C-alpha cells in the first residue's frame, strides 16, 4: 500500500517538474515566442499540476481509508485470536487440573488395592494350616491303620485258638470271625480314607496355589498400572 502511494507521488512529482522545466525553457526563448502563448502554456501546466495534485490527494485519501480498514480488521482478528488463546489456556489448565486430580485418585485407588497383598498372605497362611492339618490326619489314619492290622492278626489268632478248643470254642470262633470281618472292613475304610486324604492334598494344594498365583497376577497388574499412572502424573505435571 505504501509503496503504491510512493509510486503515484513520484509520478506526480515528475509531471510537475516536467511542466516547470518546459515553462522555463519556453520563457528563455525570449522575444521569439509571444507572451500570451507563454502565459497560456504556464496556466495549462498549472491546471494540469493542480489536477494531478487533486488526483493524488484523492488516491492518498482512498488508500488511507483502505489502510485504516485493514488495520481495524487486523486489530479485531488479533483480539479474537487473543481471546481464543486465553480460552484455550483456561481449558488446558482445567484439563491439567482434572488430569492431575484423576491420576492422584487413581494412585490412591491402586495403593489401596495393593493392600490385597495382605489378603493373599492370609490365604497362604491358611493353606499352610490346612496342609499341616491334612498331614496330621495322615499320621492319625496311619496309626488307625496299624491298629486295624493288629486287630486282624489278633482276630486270626482268636480263630485259631477257638478251633483248638474244639466244641468248647465254637461260640468264641463265631465272635472271632465277626471281629475279623469288622477289622477287615475297618482296614478297607482306612485305605479309602487315606486315598481321600491324598486326593484332598492335591486338590487343596492346587486350589490354594491357584489363589496365590492369581493374587500375584493381580498384584503384578496393579504394579504395572501404578507405573503407567506415575508416568502420566509426571507428564501432566511437566
Amino acid at each position, binding site marked *: 500500500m505504501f509503496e503504491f502511494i510512493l509510486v503515484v507521488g513520484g509520478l506526480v512529482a515528475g509531471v510537475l517538474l516536467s511542466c516547470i522545466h518546459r515553462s522555463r525553457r519556453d520563457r528563455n526563448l525570449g522575444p521569439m515566442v509571444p507572451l500570451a502563448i507563454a502565459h497560456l502554456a504556464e496556466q495549462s501546466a498549472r491546471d494540469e499540476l493542480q489536477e494531478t495534485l487533486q488526483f493524488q490527494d484523492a488516491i492518498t485519501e482512498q488508500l488511507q481509508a483502505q489502510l485504516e480498514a485493514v488495520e481495524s480488521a487486523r486489530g479485531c482478528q488479533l483480539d479474537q485470536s487473543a481471546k481464543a488463546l486465553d480460552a484455550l489456556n483456561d481449558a488446558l489448565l482445567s484439563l491439567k487440573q482434572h488430569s492431575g486430580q484423576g491420576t492422584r485418585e487413581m494412585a490412591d485407588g491402586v495403593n489401596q488395592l495393593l493392600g490385597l497383598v495382605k489378603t493373599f498372605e492370609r490365604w497362604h497362611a491358611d493353606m499352610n494350616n490346612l496342609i499341616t492339618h491334612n498331614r496330621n490326619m495322615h499320621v492319625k489314619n496311619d496309626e488307625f491303620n496299624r491298629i486295624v492290622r493288629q486287630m486282624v492278626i489278633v482276630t486270626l489268632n482268636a480263630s485259631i485258638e477257638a478251633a483248638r478248643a474244639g466244641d468248647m470254642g465254637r461260640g468264641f470262633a463265631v465272635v472271632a470271625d465277626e471281629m475279623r470281618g469288622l477289622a477287615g472292613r475297618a482296614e478297607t475304610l482306612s485305605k479309602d480314607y487315606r486315598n481321600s486324604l*491324598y486326593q484332598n492334598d*492335591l486338590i487343596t*494344594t*492346587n486350589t490354594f*496355589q*491357584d489363589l496365590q498365583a*492369581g493374587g*500375584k*497376577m493381580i498384584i*503384578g497388574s496393579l504394579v504395572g498400572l501404578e507405573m503407567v499412572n506415575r508416568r502420566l502424573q509426571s507428564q501432566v505435571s511437566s
Partner: protein
Amino acid sequence: MISPRASQAFEQMLSNALRPVMGGGVLCTMEPLSLAQPRPGTKLVAITLSSYLFRMMVLINFGNDTATKQHMAQWSKTLAADMSERQFLDAISEMANRGCGALSRSLSAVFPHIGMSTPNVLDWRCAEYLDALRCGHRKQFAVAMDSTVMFHVDLCICEYADMDFTMNAVVEEESTGELEMF
C-alpha cells in the same frame, strides 16, 4: 479347548525352561512318557502358574536315593554328606521355583498377566488323583541326567477359554524383549 499346536508350545516352553535349570551344568534331557509309567520317586514338588485364561500345575516327582541327593548337592554347590533332609527338600523346591520362574517368563510373552505360586511338597500318591483336576491337557515327561532318569515331570493345564498359539510367537517375543530377572 487347547489346540494341538498350543499344547505343543506349552510342552516346548516347559522343556526349554526346566532343562537348563534342572541340569545345573549336567547334560539334561526331557522325554515325553505315557501316563502309565511308574514314578521314580516318593515325593512331589508342585507349583502352579495362573492366568485368567488358564492355570497350569507343574509337579516334579523325585526320590531321596543317593544319585538324586548327589545331583541336588552338586546343584546347590554343597556336599551330599552335609545335606540334611530339610536342605534336600529346600534345594528341590528352589530348583522347581527357578525352572517355573523361567517358564513364567516365557509364558508372559504370550500371556502378559501371569502369576506363580510358591512350591509345596506332596506325597507321590497325590499324583494318582490328577484326573480330579479336570485338566484340558496333561503330559508326563522323564527327566534324565547324563542318561539316568532321575525325575518325572507332570504338566497339567486347565483352560478357561479356547487357546491357540504357536512357539514361534514366543521365540520372536523372547528374542526382542528384555530379560526379566527376579
